[in-house]
C-alpha cells in the first residue's frame, strides 16, 4: 500500500500512531526518542536489581545489638525488652528468633552476612567447638561478674567464651491425683525398683483405672530429644561419675543396661503401642498428660506452661531413676545448654553495645522481672519468660516445677549435671534416636545391640570426626 493512500484512509487516527507504522517517520528523528526509551527501560531494570543490595546503614558511635534468640517461646518477651532498652538508651536492639530446631542452620547463614548477629548462643562445649573463632572473650565484662558461680561460664582454655543465662531442670513430671487414685504417692518412689513396681501395677490395672503409667515416648522429631538426649544423659552422667571425668572421646557404655531398663519401662507401660512410637509427637504426650490419660511425663521446667492446666496441687516431679546403687539420693537433672556468646568479629562499638545490653538484662529491675517472672511480669502485662538465671540478682520464680527442683537441692539431693552438652555431635544423637525407635518396635537383644553400637562405637566415630 502506498503511504499517501494509507494516510488518507486512516486520517482520523492520532498522529503518534503513524510513528510506529511509518518507517520514514522513525528514521526522521524519532529514533532518538526510542533510544532513550530503551536505555531508560534498561536503567530502571538495573536500578531495581541493585536496589536490594546496597543501603547499609552508617553505623553510629553507640553501636547496635543484633540478638539471635534460641527460644521461640520467649520471642515476644525479648522483642518487648529490646524496645524498652532502645527507648531507655537509644541503642538499637534487633531480636530475631530462629524456628524451633533450626538454630544452628539459622546461625550459620546469619553469621555469613555483613550484618551478623552480635549476640548468639551455643549449647555447650560441642557447640562452642564450631563457633569458638567467633566468640569474644567475656572475662572482663559486667555480665561475667554477675554470675553466681564460675560453673555457669563456658570456657575455651582461659577465655570466657559463653555465659549461661538460664538454668533448667528435668525429670519425670507426675500427676499426683492419678497416682493417689492408683493407691500411691510420689514419696513411695525413691528408686528404679519402686518406679517399676508402680508403673507395672498401673499397667496391670489400666482397664480398671482408666489411665496408663507413662505418656507416649514419641520418637517424632518434636519429641525424640527427650530420650536420645535427655534420657541418655543419665547413663552418661553415671559413667562420668564412676570414672571421675567430665568429658571423653570414648564412652564405655557402663550403664547401658540401665538405659535399656528405663526405656523398656517407658515404652511398655505407656498409652501407646511401642510399635506406634515413631509417629508420636511432643504434642501427643502433652495432650495425654493434660487430659489425664497418663501419670508420668518426662520433661523439664520449661514445659510448665503446657501442663499447668491440671493444677499446681496435682503436679509433682521425681528424678529419673535408672537403677544405679545409691540413686535414692539422686536429684533432678539440672544445668544449662544456653550460653550467650558475643560475636568477636563484630565492630568494637557493637561488641560494647552488646555487652552493655547483657549487663542490663542481668541487673535492671524491669528486665530481670521480665526474664524471671511469669504471670504478668512484662511491663505490657504479658507473661514473663519464667527463667531461673545464674545471676546474682535472680528473682524467685513462681514456676512450680522450678520450685520443686529447688526443693530437691534444699533437701540435700545431688542434682544430675547436663552432660549431654558433651555428646559429640547431632549425628550421634540422631543415630541413637533411630536405634531406639527400631528397638521399640521389636524389642530383641539384636536390636538393642544397634542402640549399644550407636551409643559406644558412634561416640568414638563422631568424636574422631569432630576432631578433624
Amino acid at each position, binding site marked *: 500500500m502506498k503511504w499517501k493512500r494509507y494516510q488518507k484512509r486512516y486520517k482520523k487516527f492520532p498522529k503518534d500512531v503513524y510513528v510506529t507504522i511509518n518507517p520514514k517517520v522513525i528514521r526522521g528523528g524519532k*529514533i532518538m526518542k*526510542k*533510544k532513550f526509551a*530503551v*536505555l531508560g527501560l*534498561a536503567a530502571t*531494570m*538495573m536500578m531495581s*536489581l541493585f536496589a536490594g543490595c546496597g543501603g547499609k546503614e552508617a553505623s553510629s558511635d553507640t553501636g547496635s545489638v543484633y540478638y539471635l534468640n534460641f527460644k521461640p517461646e520467649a520471642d515476644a518477651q525479648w522483642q518487648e525488652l529490646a524496645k524498652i532498652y532502645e527507648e531507655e538508651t537509644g541503642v538499637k536492639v534487633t531480636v530475631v528468633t530462629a524456628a524451633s530446631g533450626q538454630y*544452628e*542452620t539459622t546461625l*550459620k547463614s546469619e*553469621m*555469613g552476612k555483613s550484618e551478623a548477629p552480635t549476640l548468639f548462643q551455643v549449647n555447650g562445649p*560441642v*557447640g562452642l*567447638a*564450631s*563457633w569458638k*573463632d*567467633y566468640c569474644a572473650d567475656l572475662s572482663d565484662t559486667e555480665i561475667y561478674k554477675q554470675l553466681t558461680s564460675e560453673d555457669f561460664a563456658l570456657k575455651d582454655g582461659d577465655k570466657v567464651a559463653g555465659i549461661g543465662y538460664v538454668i533448667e531442670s528435668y525429670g519425670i513430671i507426675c500427676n499426683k491425683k492419678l497416682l493417689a487414685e492408683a493407691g500411691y504417692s510420689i514419696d513411695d518412689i525413691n528408686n528404679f525398683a519402686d518406679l517399676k513396681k508402680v508403673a507395672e501395677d498401673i499397667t496391670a490395672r489400666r482397664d480398671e483405672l482408666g489411665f496408663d503409667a507413662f505418656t507416649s515416648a514419641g*520418637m517424632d*522429631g518434636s519429641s525424640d530429644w527427650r530420650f536420645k538426649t535427655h534420657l541418655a544423659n543419665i547413663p552418661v552422667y553415671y559413667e562420668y561419675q564412676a570414672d571421675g571425668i567430665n568429658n571423653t572421646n570414648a564412652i564405655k557404655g557402663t550403664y547401658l543396661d540401665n538405659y535399656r531398663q528405663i526405656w523398656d519401662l517407658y515404652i511398655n507401660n505407656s498409652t501407646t*503401642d511401642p*510399635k*506406634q512410637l*515413631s*509417629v508420636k509427637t511432643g504434642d501427643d504426650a502433652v495432650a495425654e498428660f493434660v487430659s489425664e490419660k497418663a501419670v508420668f511425663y518426662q520433661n523439664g521446667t520449661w514445659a510448665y506452661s503446657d501442663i499447668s492446666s491440671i493444677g499446681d496441687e496435682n503436679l509433682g516431679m521425681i528424678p529419673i531413676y535408672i537403677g544405679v546403687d545409691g540413686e535414692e539420693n539422686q536429684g533432678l537433672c539440672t544445668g544449662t545448654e544456653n550460653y550467650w556468646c558475643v560475636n568477636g568479629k563484630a565492630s568494637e562499638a557493637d561488641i560494647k553495645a552488646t555487652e552493655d545490653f547483657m549487663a542490663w538484662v542481668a541487673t535492671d529491675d524491669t528486665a530481670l522481672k521480665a526474664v524471671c517472672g511469669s504471670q504478668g511480669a512484662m511491663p505490657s502485662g504479658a507473661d514473663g519468660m519464667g527463667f531461673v538465671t545464674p545471676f546474682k540478682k535472680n528473682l524467685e520464680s513462681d514456676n512450680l516445677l522450678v520450685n520443686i527442683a529447688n526443693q530437691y537441692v534444699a533437701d540435700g539431693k545431688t542434682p544430675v549435671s547436663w552432660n549431654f552438652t558433651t555428646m*559429640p*555431635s*547431632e*549425628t550421634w544423637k*540422631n*543415630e541413637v534416636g*533411630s*536405634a531406639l*525407635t*527400631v528397638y521399640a*518396635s521389636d524389642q530383641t537383644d539384636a536390636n538393642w545391640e*544397634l542402640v549399644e553400637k550407636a551409643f559406644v562405637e558412634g561416640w568414638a566415630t*563422631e568424636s574422631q*570426626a*569432630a576432631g*578433624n
Partner: protein
Amino acid sequence: MEKAVKKYWPVFVLPTIAAFLIGFIIPFIEGIYLSFCNFTTIKDAKFVGIQNYIEAFKDSNFLGSFKFTTLFAVVSLVLINVLAFLIALALTQNIKGKNIFRTVFFMPNLIGGIVLGYVWQLIFDGIFVKFDTALKLNETLGFWGLVILVSWQQVGYMMIVYIAGLQAIPGDIQEAAMIDGANRFQRLFKITIPNMMPSITICTFLTITNSFKLFDQNLALTGGEPLHKTEMLALNIYTTFYGRVGYEGVGQAKAVVFFIVVVAIGLLQLKLTRDKEVQQ
C-alpha cells in the same frame, strides 16, 4: 525495530545476565571452591585440598543413599511416565468432563512437598496401624510410600505435557494410518509415540532430575528412617552439613559430586531420547 534490537542487544540482556551471574554463576563457583575448604560460615573458609572428598566417599550412608536414590529414580521414572501417558491418552478422547479431570489430576502438583509429606505420612500410618507397623520402621514401606507420594504429585504435571504433545500430532497422519489398516496398537506405537518423542524427552528429563533432587518429600515423609535406609542424596547432604561440627565442607563436597552426577545423567538421558525424535 529489528535493527534497534541488533544494535542494542547488550542493553537488553544485561539485566538477565547480571541476575544470572549474581544468582547462579558466582554462588556456583564459590560453592565449588568451598568444597575444598574447611569452614563454618562462608567468610572464614580455609583451603584444605581434597580432604572433604575423601571424607565424603568414606561415608557408607552416602553410598547407601546413592543406591536408594538411583533405584527410586528408575522406579518413579517408569511409573510416573507410563501413568501420565495413559491418563493423557484417556483425557484426549471425547469423554465427558475431561477438563475437570485434567484439573483434578494436575492439582496435587500445586501443593508444597513438605505439606504433602506430612499429609501422606498421616494417611500411610493410619493404614499401617492396622498391621502393627509404621512407615518409619520399614525401609520397603518407606520406599514405596515415597514412590506413591511422588507419582501422585507429578503425574498430573507430566500429563499436561503429554496432552499438549498429543494434541500437536496432525490428525491426517492418524487418518492415513487408519485407512492403511493399522489397528489401535499399531497406531499407538508407530504413529503416536514416535511423534510424541519431544514430550517424552521433556518428561523423562524432568522426572529423572526431580527424583535425584528430591528433598522435601523425603524429609517430611520418612526423614531417612529407619537408620538412614530411606535417606536420599539431597537429604544426606543436608544432614552431613548440619550433623557434625566441622563437616560443612564435606557436605559441600557431596553437593558437588551430586551436581556432577545429576548433570551427567541428565545429559545422557537427553542424548538417548533426542536420537529418537522424528521430524514432523
